[in-house]
């Protein structure tokens, strides 16, 4: 069947098909290339992002360092929540399948970078925790000016979008 195929298909397409078919035969099973979906992580992100957005709404317009003591518990809660999410996201085992190795070998032979088992959501959670830590420090020392507050909020929102999109997408 494949030999006959050679005469009717373009050589490049034929080689790609043959490479895929060979990998499929050698790996001999379904592949797992990404971590497992974790409903608990998605629920905790939703809960923590609600808390974060409510906090930003309360701070609208900026803060004064004199009233920092009132906000300190919320900062601590947010930093703890996102640090904990980072650990939870990273605790999942990395997929390590024969199929992934074969795909990486094929990608590298074509000059492309290999697919690695990274956790973009864990990185995003870490960055959110670091953002709230910096915000806490700034608030305690000098208060936060309006545009600095907007920048803190923007940074948290962007990382949250990355984490939520990735974690939700893991639900196949």
């Amino acid at each position, binding site marked *: 069947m494949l030999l006959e195929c050679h005469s009717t298909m373009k050589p490049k397409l034929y080689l790609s098909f043959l490479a895929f078919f060979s990998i499929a035969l050698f790996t001999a099973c379904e*592949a797992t*290339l*990404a971590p497992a979906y974790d409903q608990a992580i998605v629920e905790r992100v939703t809960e923590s992002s609600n808390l974060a957005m409510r906090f930003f709404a309360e701070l609208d317009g900026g803060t004064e360092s004199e009233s920092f003591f009132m906000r300190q518990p919320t900062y601590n809660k947010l930093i703890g929540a996102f640090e904990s999410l980072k650990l939870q996201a990273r605790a999942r085992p990395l997929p390590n399948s024969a199929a992934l190795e074969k795909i990486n070998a094929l990608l590298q032979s074509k000059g492309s970078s290999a697919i690695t088992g990274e956790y973009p959501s864990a990185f995003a959670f870490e960055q959110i925790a670091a953002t709230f830590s910096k915000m806490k420090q700034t608030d305690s020392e000098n208060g936060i000016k309006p*545009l600095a507050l907007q920048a803190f909020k923007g*940074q948290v929102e*962007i990382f949250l*979008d990355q984490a939520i999109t*990735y974690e939700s997408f893991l639900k196949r």
Partner: protein
Amino acid sequence: MSENVAKIITDIKDIASDVLEKDISTIRGFSERQVEAIAKQTAIIQKGIANGDIDEDLREFFLDGLEAMTLNFVNTLKGILMVTLEKLWNALVTFLYKAVGVVI
């Protein structure tokens, strides 16, 4: 025999299209949101530096943040594409095995 090959190729294309079409719209939406948000973030930082709301220390922090969010935007796209690749791979392997009469 060549009709069989043509049928297999058509089936593979259909399976690939089915998997990819569903995921591409999510990827496109995410990319558009991120690019717009990163552009707005850059404008806020510029404005904050200009009016003094963002001092030297915060400027460095937010510039590092821009770099990190851009890097992680790309890594998130790679992560999402890996899930798509997995779905595509498994759908095609299942089909190919069925085509040669192997039960997975």
